[in-house]
Protein backbone atom coordinates (compact mmCIF):
# COMPACT_ATOMS: atom_id res chain seq x y z
CA UNK A 1 0.00 0.00 0.00
CA UNK A 2 2.74 2.38 1.00
CA UNK A 3 4.57 1.49 -2.20
CA UNK A 4 1.52 2.29 -4.24
CA UNK A 5 1.05 5.63 -2.50
CA UNK A 6 4.67 6.51 -3.15
CA UNK A 7 4.30 5.59 -6.79
CA UNK A 8 1.20 7.77 -7.07
CA UNK A 9 3.04 10.71 -5.58
CA UNK A 10 5.87 10.21 -8.02
CA UNK A 11 3.52 10.14 -10.98
CA UNK A 12 1.89 13.31 -9.71
CA UNK A 13 5.29 14.97 -9.46
CA UNK A 14 6.17 13.88 -12.95
CA UNK A 15 2.83 15.14 -14.24
CA UNK A 16 3.42 18.49 -12.65
CA UNK A 17 6.92 18.60 -14.04
CA UNK A 18 5.62 17.97 -17.51
CA UNK A 19 2.73 20.41 -17.50
CA UNK A 20 3.10 22.47 -20.69
CA UNK A 21 3.70 25.75 -18.90
CA UNK A 22 6.44 24.30 -16.72
CA UNK A 23 8.03 22.56 -19.65
CA UNK A 24 7.96 25.84 -21.53
CA UNK A 25 9.50 27.73 -18.62
CA UNK A 26 12.15 25.05 -18.15
CA UNK A 27 13.19 25.37 -21.78
CA UNK A 28 13.09 29.16 -21.78
CA UNK A 29 15.08 29.50 -18.56
CA UNK A 30 17.86 27.38 -20.07
CA UNK A 31 18.32 30.01 -22.76
CA UNK A 32 20.70 32.48 -21.11
CA UNK A 33 20.39 35.22 -23.72
CA UNK A 34 16.60 35.12 -23.54
CA UNK A 35 16.69 35.32 -19.75
CA UNK A 36 19.11 38.25 -19.75
CA UNK A 37 16.81 39.98 -22.24
CA UNK A 38 13.76 39.26 -20.11
CA UNK A 39 15.44 40.73 -17.04
CA UNK A 40 16.58 43.76 -19.05
CA UNK A 41 13.07 44.35 -20.39
CA UNK A 42 11.47 43.96 -16.95
CA UNK A 43 14.00 46.47 -15.63
CA UNK A 44 13.24 48.84 -18.48
CA UNK A 45 9.52 48.52 -17.79
CA UNK A 46 10.09 49.46 -14.15
CA UNK A 47 12.22 52.42 -15.22
CA UNK A 48 9.45 53.52 -17.58
CA UNK A 49 6.74 53.14 -14.94
CA UNK A 50 8.65 55.03 -12.27
CA UNK A 51 10.35 57.51 -14.61
CA UNK A 52 9.30 60.62 -12.62
CA UNK A 53 10.93 59.18 -9.48
CA UNK A 54 14.08 57.88 -11.14
CA UNK A 55 14.96 60.62 -13.61
CA UNK A 56 17.35 63.11 -12.00
CA UNK A 57 16.03 66.12 -13.98
CA UNK A 58 12.93 67.43 -15.75
CA UNK A 59 12.95 65.93 -19.28
CA UNK A 60 11.13 68.89 -20.89
CA UNK A 61 12.40 72.05 -19.21
CA UNK A 62 16.16 72.39 -19.38
CA UNK A 63 18.62 74.81 -17.88
CA UNK A 64 19.84 76.99 -20.77
CA UNK A 65 23.15 77.85 -19.06
CA UNK A 66 24.03 74.15 -19.03
CA UNK A 67 23.28 73.40 -22.69
CA UNK A 68 25.38 71.04 -24.86
CA UNK A 69 27.53 69.78 -21.99
CA UNK A 70 29.50 66.61 -22.56
CA UNK A 71 28.86 63.77 -20.07
CA UNK A 72 30.00 64.87 -16.59
CA UNK A 73 29.39 64.16 -12.92
CA UNK A 74 26.27 66.33 -12.76
CA UNK A 75 24.78 65.14 -16.05
CA UNK A 76 25.94 61.55 -16.54
CA UNK A 77 25.07 61.48 -20.24
CA UNK A 78 25.46 65.21 -20.86
CA UNK A 79 22.85 67.79 -21.86
CA UNK A 80 21.20 68.74 -25.14
CA UNK A 81 20.90 72.04 -27.01
CA UNK A 82 18.23 73.28 -24.59
CA UNK A 83 20.14 72.25 -21.49
CA UNK A 84 17.96 69.22 -20.84
CA UNK A 85 19.53 66.23 -19.09
CA UNK A 86 19.94 63.42 -21.66
CA UNK A 87 19.74 60.62 -19.11
CA UNK A 88 16.38 61.94 -17.90
CA UNK A 89 15.10 62.22 -21.46
CA UNK A 90 16.18 58.65 -22.23
CA UNK A 91 14.41 57.42 -19.07
CA UNK A 92 11.21 59.21 -20.09
CA UNK A 93 11.75 58.04 -23.68
CA UNK A 94 11.47 54.44 -22.49
CA UNK A 95 7.85 55.19 -21.63
CA UNK A 96 7.03 56.25 -25.18
CA UNK A 97 8.98 53.53 -26.93
CA UNK A 98 7.57 50.71 -24.82
CA UNK A 99 4.05 52.10 -24.94
CA UNK A 100 4.07 52.59 -28.69
CA UNK A 101 5.71 49.20 -29.28
CA UNK A 102 3.29 47.26 -27.09
CA UNK A 103 0.20 49.18 -28.14
CA UNK A 104 0.94 48.98 -31.87
CA UNK A 105 1.53 45.25 -31.67
CA UNK A 106 -1.58 44.73 -29.51
CA UNK A 107 -3.78 46.54 -32.05
CA UNK A 108 -2.15 44.94 -35.09
CA UNK A 109 -2.30 41.51 -33.48
CA UNK A 110 -5.98 41.78 -32.52
CA UNK A 111 -7.18 43.09 -35.86
CA UNK A 112 -4.85 40.74 -37.75
CA UNK A 113 -6.03 37.76 -35.71
CA UNK A 114 -9.72 38.52 -36.34
CA UNK A 115 -9.21 39.09 -40.09
CA UNK A 116 -6.85 36.13 -40.46
CA UNK A 117 -9.16 33.72 -38.65
CA UNK A 118 -12.20 34.89 -40.62
CA UNK A 119 -10.28 34.44 -43.87
CA UNK A 120 -8.91 31.05 -42.90
CA UNK A 121 -12.09 29.70 -41.30
CA UNK A 122 -14.62 30.72 -43.94
CA UNK A 123 -12.37 30.47 -47.00
CA UNK A 124 -13.85 31.20 -50.44
CA UNK A 125 -14.71 34.75 -51.47
CA UNK A 126 -14.25 36.26 -48.01
CA UNK A 127 -10.75 34.79 -47.86
CA UNK A 128 -9.96 36.07 -51.34
CA UNK A 129 -11.12 39.62 -50.62
CA UNK A 130 -9.36 39.91 -47.26
CA UNK A 131 -6.10 38.39 -48.41
CA UNK A 132 -5.96 40.39 -51.68
CA UNK A 133 -6.28 43.54 -49.61
CA UNK A 134 -3.52 42.33 -47.30
CA UNK A 135 -1.35 41.56 -50.34
CA UNK A 136 -1.77 45.10 -51.61
CA UNK A 137 -0.70 46.45 -48.22
CA UNK A 138 2.25 44.09 -48.18
CA UNK A 139 3.27 45.36 -51.60
CA UNK A 140 4.45 48.59 -49.98
CA UNK A 141 7.71 48.65 -48.05
CA UNK A 142 6.27 48.91 -44.52
CA UNK A 143 8.18 52.01 -43.45
CA UNK A 144 7.06 53.78 -46.62
CA UNK A 145 3.44 52.91 -45.90
CA UNK A 146 3.82 54.13 -42.32
CA UNK A 147 5.26 57.40 -43.66
CA UNK A 148 2.29 57.72 -46.03
CA UNK A 149 -0.15 57.27 -43.17
CA UNK A 150 1.70 59.85 -41.08
CA UNK A 151 1.43 62.26 -44.01
CA UNK A 152 -2.32 61.81 -43.92
CA UNK A 153 -3.02 61.44 -40.20
CA UNK A 154 -0.62 64.15 -39.12
CA UNK A 155 2.32 63.88 -36.76
CA UNK A 156 2.18 62.75 -33.15
CA UNK A 157 2.47 59.70 -30.96
CA UNK A 158 -1.13 58.43 -31.26
CA UNK A 159 -0.96 58.61 -35.04
CA UNK A 160 2.38 56.79 -35.00
CA UNK A 161 0.70 53.95 -33.09
CA UNK A 162 -2.14 53.84 -35.63
CA UNK A 163 0.20 53.99 -38.65
CA UNK A 164 2.52 51.28 -37.34
CA UNK A 165 -0.31 48.98 -36.36
CA UNK A 166 -1.97 49.36 -39.77
CA UNK A 167 1.21 48.57 -41.70
CA UNK A 168 2.22 45.57 -39.58
CA UNK A 169 -1.27 44.07 -39.35
CA UNK A 170 -1.26 42.14 -42.68
CA UNK A 171 1.65 40.01 -41.54
CA UNK A 172 -0.25 38.81 -38.47
CA UNK A 173 -3.36 38.18 -40.56
CA UNK A 174 -1.28 36.00 -42.86
CA UNK A 175 0.25 33.96 -40.06
CA UNK A 176 -3.09 33.45 -38.30
CA UNK A 177 -4.81 32.50 -41.55
CA UNK A 178 -2.15 29.90 -42.30
CA UNK A 179 -2.36 28.43 -38.79
CA UNK A 180 -6.17 28.37 -38.86
CA UNK A 181 -6.10 26.57 -42.20
CA UNK A 182 -3.79 23.96 -40.74
CA UNK A 183 -5.99 23.11 -37.73
CA UNK A 184 -9.54 23.75 -38.90
CA UNK A 185 -9.99 20.27 -40.36
CA UNK A 186 -8.85 18.60 -37.12
CA UNK A 187 -11.30 16.27 -35.43
CA UNK A 188 -11.76 18.36 -32.31
CA UNK A 189 -12.86 21.29 -34.45
CA UNK A 190 -15.31 19.15 -36.36
CA UNK A 191 -16.57 17.74 -33.07
CA UNK A 192 -17.12 21.24 -31.74
CA UNK A 193 -19.05 22.06 -34.87
CA UNK A 194 -21.06 18.84 -34.68
CA UNK A 195 -22.37 19.61 -31.20
CA UNK A 196 -23.69 22.91 -32.52
CA UNK A 197 -21.18 25.56 -31.38
CA UNK A 198 -21.41 28.93 -33.04
CA UNK A 199 -18.60 29.85 -35.46
CA UNK A 200 -17.24 32.56 -33.17
CA UNK A 201 -17.07 30.10 -30.27
CA UNK A 202 -15.30 27.53 -32.41
CA UNK A 203 -12.76 30.09 -33.62
CA UNK A 204 -12.03 31.63 -30.23
CA UNK A 205 -12.33 28.58 -27.98
CA UNK A 206 -11.10 25.74 -30.13
CA UNK A 207 -8.98 27.05 -32.98
CA UNK A 208 -7.10 30.11 -31.72
CA UNK A 209 -5.73 28.56 -28.49
CA UNK A 210 -4.10 25.93 -30.66
CA UNK A 211 -2.37 28.37 -32.97
CA UNK A 212 -1.11 30.80 -30.31
CA UNK A 213 2.56 29.76 -30.37
CA UNK A 214 3.58 31.31 -33.71
CA UNK A 215 1.42 34.36 -32.94
CA UNK A 216 3.15 35.01 -29.60
CA UNK A 217 6.59 34.60 -31.16
CA UNK A 218 5.75 36.89 -34.08
CA UNK A 219 4.22 39.43 -31.70
CA UNK A 220 7.36 39.60 -29.55
CA UNK A 221 9.57 40.06 -32.58
CA UNK A 222 6.99 42.55 -33.87
CA UNK A 223 7.54 44.80 -30.85
CA UNK A 224 11.13 45.34 -31.95
CA UNK A 225 9.96 46.26 -35.45
CA UNK A 226 7.40 48.65 -33.97
CA UNK A 227 10.02 50.32 -31.77
CA UNK A 228 12.41 50.69 -34.71
CA UNK A 229 9.68 52.19 -36.89
CA UNK A 230 8.58 54.60 -34.17
CA UNK A 231 12.16 55.74 -33.86
CA UNK A 232 12.45 56.07 -37.64
CA UNK A 233 9.30 58.20 -37.85
CA UNK A 234 10.54 60.32 -34.95
CA UNK A 235 13.92 60.75 -36.61
CA UNK A 236 12.31 61.90 -39.87
CA UNK A 237 10.29 64.47 -37.91
CA UNK A 238 7.01 62.67 -38.59
CA UNK A 239 6.50 60.82 -35.32
CA UNK A 240 6.56 62.02 -31.74
CA UNK A 241 7.00 65.78 -31.73
CA UNK A 242 9.40 67.85 -29.62
CA UNK A 243 9.60 68.67 -26.78
CA UNK A 244 8.42 65.15 -25.89
CA UNK A 245 11.33 62.84 -25.23
CA UNK A 246 11.37 59.96 -27.70
CA UNK A 247 14.57 58.18 -28.69
CA UNK A 248 14.18 58.61 -32.46
CA UNK A 249 13.10 62.24 -32.14
CA UNK A 250 16.13 62.88 -29.90
CA UNK A 251 18.37 61.48 -32.67
CA UNK A 252 16.63 63.64 -35.24
CA UNK A 253 17.19 66.86 -33.33
CA UNK A 254 20.68 65.84 -32.14
CA UNK A 255 21.70 65.37 -35.76
CA UNK A 256 22.14 69.11 -36.11
CA UNK A 257 24.89 69.12 -33.45
CA UNK A 258 27.08 66.30 -34.79
CA UNK A 259 30.08 68.61 -35.08
CA UNK A 260 30.22 70.10 -31.61
CA UNK A 261 28.17 67.70 -29.47
CA UNK A 262 28.14 64.19 -30.92
CA UNK A 263 27.16 62.77 -27.51
CA UNK A 264 23.59 63.88 -28.32
CA UNK A 265 23.32 61.02 -30.80
CA UNK A 266 25.29 58.34 -28.94
CA UNK A 267 22.97 57.41 -26.10
CA UNK A 268 19.46 57.44 -27.61
CA UNK A 269 20.81 55.10 -30.32
CA UNK A 270 22.30 52.76 -27.73
CA UNK A 271 18.95 52.72 -25.90
CA UNK A 272 17.07 51.79 -29.09
CA UNK A 273 19.61 49.12 -30.07
CA UNK A 274 19.62 47.42 -26.66
CA UNK A 275 15.82 47.41 -26.39
CA UNK A 276 15.30 46.09 -29.90
CA UNK A 277 18.00 43.47 -29.39
CA UNK A 278 16.36 42.31 -26.15
CA UNK A 279 12.99 41.86 -27.84
CA UNK A 280 14.67 39.99 -30.71
CA UNK A 281 16.52 37.63 -28.37
CA UNK A 282 13.42 37.08 -26.23
CA UNK A 283 11.38 36.35 -29.36
CA UNK A 284 13.97 33.81 -30.54
CA UNK A 285 13.98 32.23 -27.08
CA UNK A 286 10.18 32.02 -27.01
CA UNK A 287 10.19 30.42 -30.44
CA UNK A 288 12.66 27.76 -29.32
CA UNK A 289 10.82 27.12 -26.07
CA UNK A 290 7.32 27.01 -27.55
CA UNK A 291 8.14 24.88 -30.54
CA UNK A 292 11.40 22.94 -30.43
CA UNK A 293 10.95 21.91 -34.05
CA UNK A 294 11.53 25.50 -35.14
CA UNK A 295 14.89 25.70 -33.39
CA UNK A 296 17.62 26.93 -35.68
Amino acid at each position, binding site marked *: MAELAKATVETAEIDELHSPLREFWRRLSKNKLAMVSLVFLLGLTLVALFAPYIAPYDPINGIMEESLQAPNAKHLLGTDELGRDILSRIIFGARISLRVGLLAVAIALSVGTVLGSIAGYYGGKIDLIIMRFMDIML*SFPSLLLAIAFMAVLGRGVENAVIAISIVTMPEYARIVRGSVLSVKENEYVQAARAIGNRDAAIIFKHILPNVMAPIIVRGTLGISTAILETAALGFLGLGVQPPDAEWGTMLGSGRGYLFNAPHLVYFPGIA*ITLTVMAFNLLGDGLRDALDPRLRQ
Partner: protein
Amino acid sequence: MLRYVIKRILLLIPVLLGISFFVFMVLHLFTTDPAALMLGQHATNEQVAALREELGLNDPVWVQFFRFLSDLVQGDFGRSLMTRAPVLDEIFSRFPATVELALAAIFIAAIVGITVGVVSAVKQYSVFDYFSMIGALLGVSMPIFWLGLMMIVLFSLKLHWLPVSGRIDIGMEPVHITGLYIMDSILTRDWESLKSALLHIIMPATALASYSMAIIARMTRSTMLEVIRQDYIRTARAKGLKETVVTYRHALRNALIPVITVIGLQMGVLMGGAVLTETVFSWPGIGSRLVDAILASDYPMVQGSIIFIATVFVVVNLVVDLLYAWLDPRIKYS
Protein backbone atom coordinates in the same frame (compact mmCIF):
# COMPACT_ATOMS: atom_id res chain seq x y z
CA MET B 1 7.44 29.00 -68.33
CA LEU B 2 6.29 31.66 -70.80
CA ARG B 3 2.67 31.14 -69.78
CA TYR B 4 3.71 31.52 -66.16
CA VAL B 5 5.59 34.73 -66.88
CA ILE B 6 2.63 36.21 -68.76
CA LYS B 7 0.22 35.17 -66.03
CA ARG B 8 2.38 36.77 -63.35
CA ILE B 9 2.70 39.99 -65.34
CA LEU B 10 -1.06 40.16 -65.87
CA LEU B 11 -1.58 39.64 -62.14
CA LEU B 12 0.43 42.82 -61.57
CA ILE B 13 -2.37 44.92 -63.04
CA PRO B 14 -4.88 44.49 -60.20
CA VAL B 15 -2.12 45.02 -57.64
CA LEU B 16 -0.97 48.25 -59.29
CA LEU B 17 -4.59 49.41 -59.60
CA GLY B 18 -5.06 48.57 -55.93
CA ILE B 19 -1.96 50.58 -54.98
CA SER B 20 -3.11 53.64 -56.93
CA PHE B 21 -6.63 53.42 -55.55
CA PHE B 22 -5.34 53.00 -52.03
CA VAL B 23 -2.94 55.95 -52.20
CA PHE B 24 -5.53 58.14 -53.93
CA MET B 25 -8.28 57.40 -51.44
CA VAL B 26 -6.11 57.74 -48.37
CA LEU B 27 -4.67 61.07 -49.46
CA HIS B 28 -7.94 62.48 -50.77
CA LEU B 29 -10.16 61.52 -47.90
CA PHE B 30 -7.98 62.78 -45.13
CA THR B 31 -5.69 65.56 -46.24
CA THR B 32 -6.37 69.24 -46.00
CA ASP B 33 -7.89 70.99 -48.97
CA PRO B 34 -5.25 71.18 -51.73
CA ALA B 35 -6.85 74.32 -53.14
CA ALA B 36 -6.47 76.13 -49.83
CA LEU B 37 -2.94 74.82 -49.60
CA MET B 38 -2.01 76.07 -53.05
CA LEU B 39 -3.41 79.54 -52.52
CA GLY B 40 -1.90 80.06 -49.09
CA GLN B 41 -3.30 81.66 -45.96
CA HIS B 42 -4.41 84.97 -47.43
CA ALA B 43 -6.81 83.56 -50.02
CA THR B 44 -10.50 84.40 -49.71
CA ASN B 45 -13.15 81.70 -49.53
CA GLU B 46 -14.34 82.65 -53.03
CA GLN B 47 -10.86 82.18 -54.48
CA VAL B 48 -10.55 78.77 -52.84
CA ALA B 49 -14.01 77.76 -54.11
CA ALA B 50 -13.12 78.86 -57.64
CA LEU B 51 -9.89 76.89 -57.61
CA ARG B 52 -11.67 73.84 -56.23
CA GLU B 53 -14.08 74.02 -59.16
CA GLU B 54 -11.22 74.49 -61.60
CA LEU B 55 -9.27 71.52 -60.19
CA GLY B 56 -12.40 69.36 -60.29
CA LEU B 57 -12.38 68.81 -56.55
CA ASN B 58 -16.16 69.17 -56.37
CA ASP B 59 -16.77 66.17 -58.61
CA PRO B 60 -17.75 62.82 -57.08
CA VAL B 61 -14.79 60.89 -55.69
CA TRP B 62 -14.97 58.11 -58.27
CA VAL B 63 -14.90 60.65 -61.14
CA GLN B 64 -11.82 62.18 -59.55
CA PHE B 65 -10.21 58.77 -59.20
CA PHE B 66 -10.74 57.84 -62.84
CA ARG B 67 -9.41 61.20 -63.97
CA PHE B 68 -6.40 60.65 -61.73
CA LEU B 69 -5.94 57.15 -63.11
CA SER B 70 -6.15 58.18 -66.75
CA ASP B 71 -3.62 60.95 -66.08
CA LEU B 72 -1.40 58.42 -64.35
CA VAL B 73 -1.49 55.99 -67.27
CA GLN B 74 -0.50 58.85 -69.57
CA GLY B 75 2.45 59.59 -67.33
CA ASP B 76 0.92 62.72 -65.78
CA PHE B 77 1.51 62.61 -62.04
CA GLY B 78 0.53 66.24 -61.54
CA ARG B 79 2.77 69.11 -60.49
CA SER B 80 4.67 69.57 -57.28
CA LEU B 81 3.13 72.30 -55.12
CA MET B 82 6.61 73.26 -53.92
CA THR B 83 8.61 73.53 -57.14
CA ARG B 84 5.75 73.69 -59.69
CA ALA B 85 7.69 71.13 -61.77
CA PRO B 86 5.93 68.00 -63.07
CA VAL B 87 6.11 65.30 -60.39
CA LEU B 88 7.31 62.64 -62.82
CA ASP B 89 10.25 64.80 -63.98
CA GLU B 90 11.35 65.25 -60.38
CA ILE B 91 11.02 61.53 -59.72
CA PHE B 92 13.05 60.62 -62.80
CA SER B 93 15.75 63.15 -62.02
CA ARG B 94 16.16 61.67 -58.54
CA PHE B 95 15.54 58.01 -59.28
CA PRO B 96 19.07 57.15 -60.52
CA ALA B 97 20.56 58.27 -57.20
CA THR B 98 18.26 55.92 -55.27
CA VAL B 99 18.94 53.05 -57.68
CA GLU B 100 22.68 53.57 -57.42
CA LEU B 101 22.51 53.58 -53.62
CA ALA B 102 20.29 50.47 -53.48
CA LEU B 103 22.48 48.56 -55.95
CA ALA B 104 25.66 49.45 -54.08
CA ALA B 105 24.01 48.38 -50.81
CA ILE B 106 22.78 45.03 -52.15
CA PHE B 107 26.22 44.40 -53.62
CA ILE B 108 27.94 45.03 -50.27
CA ALA B 109 25.28 43.08 -48.37
CA ALA B 110 25.53 40.05 -50.66
CA ILE B 111 29.34 39.87 -50.82
CA VAL B 112 29.94 40.43 -47.11
CA GLY B 113 26.87 38.49 -45.99
CA ILE B 114 27.61 35.37 -48.03
CA THR B 115 31.34 35.35 -47.14
CA VAL B 116 30.66 35.76 -43.42
CA GLY B 117 27.89 33.15 -43.54
CA VAL B 118 30.06 30.55 -45.31
CA VAL B 119 33.07 31.04 -43.03
CA SER B 120 30.85 30.92 -39.91
CA ALA B 121 29.27 27.67 -41.07
CA VAL B 122 32.55 26.02 -42.02
CA LYS B 123 34.10 27.10 -38.73
CA GLN B 124 30.98 26.60 -36.60
CA TYR B 125 31.41 27.55 -32.90
CA SER B 126 34.76 29.25 -33.63
CA VAL B 127 35.63 32.73 -32.41
CA PHE B 128 34.88 34.05 -35.90
CA ASP B 129 31.44 32.40 -35.89
CA TYR B 130 30.72 33.81 -32.45
CA PHE B 131 31.67 37.38 -33.36
CA SER B 132 29.99 37.38 -36.72
CA MET B 133 26.71 36.19 -35.22
CA ILE B 134 26.92 38.96 -32.62
CA GLY B 135 27.51 41.32 -35.52
CA ALA B 136 24.47 39.93 -37.30
CA LEU B 137 22.35 40.43 -34.19
CA LEU B 138 23.55 44.03 -33.98
CA GLY B 139 22.80 44.45 -37.68
CA VAL B 140 19.13 43.61 -37.26
CA SER B 141 18.74 45.55 -34.00
CA MET B 142 20.49 48.82 -34.83
CA PRO B 143 18.44 51.57 -36.46
CA ILE B 144 20.18 52.20 -39.78
CA PHE B 145 19.91 55.96 -39.39
CA TRP B 146 21.78 55.74 -36.12
CA LEU B 147 24.48 53.57 -37.66
CA GLY B 148 24.74 56.22 -40.38
CA LEU B 149 25.16 59.00 -37.82
CA MET B 150 27.82 57.01 -35.95
CA MET B 151 29.71 56.44 -39.20
CA ILE B 152 29.61 60.15 -39.96
CA VAL B 153 30.98 60.97 -36.51
CA LEU B 154 33.81 58.42 -36.83
CA PHE B 155 34.85 58.50 -40.49
CA SER B 156 34.02 62.08 -41.42
CA LEU B 157 34.31 64.19 -38.30
CA LYS B 158 37.02 62.37 -36.33
CA LEU B 159 39.15 60.65 -38.97
CA HIS B 160 38.35 62.95 -41.94
CA TRP B 161 38.45 60.01 -44.33
CA LEU B 162 35.07 60.33 -46.00
CA PRO B 163 32.76 63.19 -47.00
CA VAL B 164 29.79 63.89 -44.69
CA SER B 165 27.05 64.00 -47.30
CA GLY B 166 26.04 64.27 -50.94
CA ARG B 167 26.64 62.10 -53.97
CA ILE B 168 29.80 63.57 -55.49
CA ASP B 169 31.99 66.66 -55.13
CA ILE B 170 30.44 69.73 -56.74
CA GLY B 171 31.46 70.07 -60.39
CA MET B 172 32.72 66.49 -60.61
CA GLU B 173 29.52 65.02 -62.08
CA PRO B 174 30.38 62.69 -64.97
CA VAL B 175 28.78 62.97 -68.41
CA HIS B 176 25.17 61.80 -68.17
CA ILE B 177 24.69 58.37 -69.74
CA THR B 178 22.80 56.17 -67.29
CA GLY B 179 22.51 58.65 -64.42
CA LEU B 180 24.43 56.26 -62.17
CA TYR B 181 27.59 58.21 -61.37
CA ILE B 182 29.81 55.17 -60.80
CA MET B 183 28.71 53.57 -64.05
CA ASP B 184 28.96 56.80 -66.04
CA SER B 185 32.42 57.66 -64.77
CA ILE B 186 33.68 54.18 -65.66
CA LEU B 187 32.12 54.41 -69.12
CA THR B 188 33.72 57.81 -69.75
CA ARG B 189 36.98 56.78 -68.00
CA ASP B 190 36.66 59.75 -65.71
CA TRP B 191 38.70 58.33 -62.80
CA GLU B 192 38.59 61.50 -60.69
CA SER B 193 34.78 61.43 -60.73
CA LEU B 194 34.78 57.72 -60.01
CA LYS B 195 36.96 58.25 -56.96
CA SER B 196 34.74 61.03 -55.69
CA ALA B 197 31.55 59.03 -56.31
CA LEU B 198 32.94 55.96 -54.53
CA LEU B 199 34.09 57.99 -51.52
CA HIS B 200 30.61 59.50 -51.25
CA ILE B 201 28.65 56.29 -51.63
CA ILE B 202 30.61 54.00 -49.33
CA MET B 203 29.09 55.16 -46.01
CA PRO B 204 25.42 55.45 -47.05
CA ALA B 205 25.60 52.14 -48.92
CA THR B 206 27.18 50.33 -45.96
CA ALA B 207 24.66 51.80 -43.51
CA LEU B 208 21.79 50.85 -45.78
CA ALA B 209 23.29 47.38 -46.28
CA SER B 210 23.71 46.59 -42.58
CA TYR B 211 20.30 45.03 -42.00
CA SER B 212 20.29 42.98 -45.21
CA MET B 213 23.89 41.94 -44.63
CA ALA B 214 22.93 40.48 -41.26
CA ILE B 215 19.91 38.64 -42.70
CA ILE B 216 21.98 37.24 -45.59
CA ALA B 217 24.81 36.13 -43.27
CA ARG B 218 22.39 34.30 -40.96
CA MET B 219 20.57 32.68 -43.86
CA THR B 220 23.79 31.57 -45.58
CA ARG B 221 25.13 30.16 -42.34
CA SER B 222 22.03 28.10 -41.56
CA THR B 223 21.56 26.72 -45.09
CA MET B 224 25.29 25.93 -45.34
CA LEU B 225 25.11 24.04 -42.03
CA GLU B 226 22.19 22.07 -43.39
CA VAL B 227 23.85 21.30 -46.72
CA ILE B 228 27.18 20.30 -45.16
CA ARG B 229 25.44 17.41 -43.39
CA GLN B 230 23.97 15.98 -46.61
CA ASP B 231 25.06 12.66 -48.02
CA TYR B 232 26.42 14.05 -51.27
CA ILE B 233 28.87 16.19 -49.30
CA ARG B 234 30.10 13.11 -47.48
CA THR B 235 30.41 11.37 -50.85
CA ALA B 236 32.42 14.28 -52.24
CA ARG B 237 34.76 14.11 -49.25
CA ALA B 238 34.99 10.33 -49.53
CA LYS B 239 36.08 10.72 -53.15
CA GLY B 240 39.09 12.54 -51.74
CA LEU B 241 38.22 16.00 -53.03
CA LYS B 242 39.93 18.93 -51.41
CA GLU B 243 37.95 20.62 -48.61
CA THR B 244 37.81 23.94 -50.50
CA VAL B 245 36.37 22.22 -53.56
CA VAL B 246 33.77 20.48 -51.39
CA THR B 247 32.85 23.75 -49.69
CA TYR B 248 32.64 25.98 -52.72
CA ARG B 249 31.69 23.66 -55.61
CA HIS B 250 29.39 21.25 -53.82
CA ALA B 251 28.04 22.91 -50.70
CA LEU B 252 27.86 26.61 -51.50
CA ARG B 253 26.17 26.14 -54.87
CA ASN B 254 23.32 24.25 -53.30
CA ALA B 255 23.10 26.51 -50.28
CA LEU B 256 22.84 29.63 -52.44
CA ILE B 257 19.36 29.04 -53.85
CA PRO B 258 17.40 30.15 -50.77
CA VAL B 259 19.97 32.87 -50.18
CA ILE B 260 19.24 34.35 -53.60
CA THR B 261 15.54 34.67 -52.76
CA VAL B 262 16.43 36.48 -49.56
CA ILE B 263 18.71 38.83 -51.49
CA GLY B 264 15.86 39.56 -53.89
CA LEU B 265 13.44 40.28 -51.08
CA GLN B 266 15.99 42.59 -49.48
CA MET B 267 15.96 44.72 -52.64
CA GLY B 268 12.48 45.89 -51.65
CA VAL B 269 13.48 46.43 -48.03
CA LEU B 270 16.31 48.62 -49.31
CA MET B 271 13.90 50.84 -51.25
CA GLY B 272 12.13 51.58 -47.95
CA GLY B 273 15.34 51.93 -45.96
CA ALA B 274 16.60 54.36 -48.56
CA VAL B 275 14.22 56.99 -47.14
CA LEU B 276 16.17 56.97 -43.88
CA THR B 277 19.65 56.64 -45.34
CA GLU B 278 19.07 59.37 -47.88
CA THR B 279 17.89 61.69 -45.11
CA VAL B 280 20.93 61.00 -42.93
CA PHE B 281 23.46 61.51 -45.73
CA SER B 282 21.52 64.18 -47.70
CA TRP B 283 21.59 61.77 -50.63
CA PRO B 284 19.60 63.38 -53.47
CA GLY B 285 17.27 60.42 -54.16
CA ILE B 286 13.51 59.89 -54.12
CA GLY B 287 13.42 58.94 -50.45
CA SER B 288 14.74 62.25 -49.15
CA ARG B 289 12.51 64.12 -51.62
CA LEU B 290 9.48 62.23 -50.27
CA VAL B 291 10.25 63.25 -46.70
CA ASP B 292 10.67 66.90 -47.74
CA ALA B 293 7.37 66.70 -49.62
CA ILE B 294 5.53 65.32 -46.59
CA LEU B 295 6.95 67.97 -44.28
CA ALA B 296 5.80 70.62 -46.79
CA SER B 297 2.36 68.99 -47.38
CA ASP B 298 3.22 68.78 -51.09
CA TYR B 299 0.67 66.08 -51.68
CA PRO B 300 0.93 65.52 -55.48
CA MET B 301 4.62 64.85 -54.91
CA VAL B 302 3.88 62.54 -51.94
CA GLN B 303 1.27 60.67 -53.96
CA GLY B 304 3.50 60.34 -57.02
CA SER B 305 6.60 59.20 -55.18
CA ILE B 306 4.73 56.64 -53.08
CA ILE B 307 3.01 55.14 -56.12
CA PHE B 308 6.31 55.13 -57.98
CA ILE B 309 8.33 53.48 -55.19
CA ALA B 310 5.60 50.89 -54.53
CA THR B 311 5.47 50.07 -58.25
CA VAL B 312 9.23 49.58 -58.38
CA PHE B 313 9.00 47.41 -55.27
CA VAL B 314 6.28 45.21 -56.80
CA VAL B 315 8.11 44.87 -60.11
CA VAL B 316 11.42 44.01 -58.41
CA ASN B 317 9.69 41.35 -56.33
CA LEU B 318 8.12 39.90 -59.47
CA VAL B 319 11.47 39.76 -61.26
CA VAL B 320 12.99 38.02 -58.23
CA ASP B 321 10.17 35.47 -58.19
CA LEU B 322 10.62 34.76 -61.88
CA LEU B 323 14.40 34.47 -61.55
CA TYR B 324 13.91 32.10 -58.68
CA ALA B 325 11.51 29.93 -60.65
CA TRP B 326 14.04 29.85 -63.47
CA LEU B 327 16.95 28.99 -61.15
CA ASP B 328 15.21 26.27 -59.19
CA PRO B 329 13.40 23.79 -61.44
CA ARG B 330 11.61 22.28 -58.46
CA ILE B 331 9.29 25.29 -58.29
CA LYS B 332 5.87 24.68 -59.79
CA TYR B 333 4.46 27.25 -62.18
CA SER B 334 1.06 27.50 -60.60
